[in-house]
């Protein structure tokens, strides 16, 4: 039995892996192409942006030549591809004059730490709250949990952020109200309140979906069998029920996390955090093409990795999704 099944499972896995990698490569390629041409649609000349409106015509021409902006867009694109694929080089930032990759890597830790904190807070609370609700079905807590998404879905992150700063940082003084810069010693501490704010909006829909799946699984025959076999309740809940129920919630969460990476600008703006979102926004305002491309490329790679990993995890814990 084992011998005949294992190779088939392996083949299936390889097939899935090939498809997933192909799709990841395509997504990154599409994002790269779209960003490259989209940013060039924006009116405004990078050389003029750096040198100022009143710079001499000759020096602007010289800078345009040095940046390769005089070439037709298709040739610029080929050059960009060559540099990225052959040397892993996304080019020099026009505004700051340093490697755009180094700039992204300098600001990335802040955003990544924020994403990690959000993941931990969101997933832990979602699992805990949905278990409490599902095991006390139709109780007061369960009913409160069910109406919560209606309240939070219309809460803009920046608005809850402003209120949370006022309450937790200004009034209660639990957290610093100031901003966070990359490399700050208090980076982790300063990112807790932003992470709580983001999680606050993400938890209710996750709880709603997980609670529904938990209730379905709790009604399944195998749970009755386990109960009859006197398997401890804790083990039934966390090893058997959770494993059967968590897949759709994880997929939903990975999409939310991707949106967070792409849309971290709002959180950064409200909390004065210097992260990738602000870097991107400033790069667009400055028409700093290489920097925009670098941020977009690294974000896309990271998001593709998240989605790949969550697919992989879901396949591992829930074999039914492997078909």
């Amino acid at each position, binding site marked *: 039995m084992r011998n005949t099944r294992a190779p088939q499972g392996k083949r299936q896995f390889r097939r899935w892996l090939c498809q997933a990698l192909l799709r990841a490569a395509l*997504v990154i390629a599409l994002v790269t192409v779209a960003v490259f041409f989209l940013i060039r649609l924006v*009116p*405004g000349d990078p050389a003029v942006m750096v040198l100022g409106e009143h710079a001499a015509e000759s020096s602007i021409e010289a800078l345009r030549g040095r940046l390769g902006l005089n070439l037709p867009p298709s040739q610029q694109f080929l050059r960009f591809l060559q540099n990225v694929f052959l040397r892993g080089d996304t080019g020099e930032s026009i505004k700051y004059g340093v490697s755009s990759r180094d700039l992204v890597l300098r600001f990335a830790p802040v955003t990544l730490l924020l994403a990690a904190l959000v993941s931990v807070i969101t997933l832990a609370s979602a699992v805990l709250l949905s278990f409490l609700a599902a095991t006390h079905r139709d109780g007061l807590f369960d009913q409160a949990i069910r109406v919560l998404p209606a*309240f939070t879905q*219309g809460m803009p992150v920046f608005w809850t952020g402003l*209120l949370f700063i006022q309450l937790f940082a200004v009034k209660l003084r639990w957290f610093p109200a100031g901003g966070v810069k990359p490399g700050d010693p208090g980076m982790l501490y300063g990112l807790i309140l932003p992470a709580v704010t983001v999680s606050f909006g993400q938890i209710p829909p996750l709880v709603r979906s997980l609670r529904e799946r938990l209730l379905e699984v709790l*009604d399944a025959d195998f749970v009755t069998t386990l109960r009859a076999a006197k398997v401890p309740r804790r083990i039934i809940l966390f090893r058997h029920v959770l494993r059967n129920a968590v897949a759709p919630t994880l997929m939903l969460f990975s999409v939310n996390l991707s949106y967070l990476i792409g*849309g971290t600008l709002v959180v950064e703006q409200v909390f004065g955090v210097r992260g990738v979102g602000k870097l991107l926004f400033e790069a667009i305002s400055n028409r700093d093409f290489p920097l925009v491309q670098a941020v977009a490329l690294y974000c896309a790679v990271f998001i593709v990795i998240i989605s790949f990993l969550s697919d992989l995890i879901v396949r591992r814990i829930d074999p039914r999704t492997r078909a």
Partner: protein
Amino acid sequence: MKRQKPARGAGRGKRTLYIGLAMMGALALAALLAPAICRYDPMEQHLELFLTPPCPAHPFGTDQLGRDMFSRVLYAARTDLIVMVLAEIVPFAVGVFLGMAAGYFGGRTEWIVALATDTFIAFPYYLLVAVVAFLTGAGMHGIFITFMLVGWLTYARVARGVTGSLRRSEWVESARLMGYSHLRIIATQIFPNVLPQAVVVLMTDMAGLLVLIVTLGYLGIGITPPAPDWGTMIAEGQYVIDSAWWLTVIPGLMVVYTGIGLSCLGDGLADLWR
């Protein structure tokens, strides 16, 4: 599943629907009748009244320029709700149509829709928003164009899912045997089944879009003054949140209120059509 009591569920669905209708109806009516309801012009400045807390004459207080917040909040509702509804029309129609076509004819389209969705998720959303805002200048056009580019994906996914499961159903098979054209089958057999689901999704999506509109206003790349908008109102109020909480809290609560209303409508309709 087994424990569900259908009678009670149906009753709750109706009640949720009525609550949603009442909430959204009241808001739409108030926005529509704003010129008749408001005692003050939303632009009228009374510098001697600046930052007046909520009181009988100004139920929502006044802002830094002494403008009546009640009038401003209601006039902002007109802008925000109209933009929200108008921006959904094209993506809804296009998404439902493309989704039905993809689900009905199957094949590669499924893969393409999935790829488009993945690409959109991996695309830095604010890059698109900012580029469009720089191209069209800040304002409503930017929101319409951005949402036209990405909003259809949600509906395409829903419509494709429903259509895919219907394609092999007996009544679609028999319609085909009776010699109906593909277009006629889609219009008479598929569309009536897709529409309710798409409308339920529309309610959630509108709440998300409203949050986006307000967020863009807050960031200064959405609806721009002098057109009143809840987002810009919050942005203007945030610096005096210590002394004048109403400038920040009340416009935000309006967004939350709309979100609750839309959520009740969506849940109620979903129960009704289940």
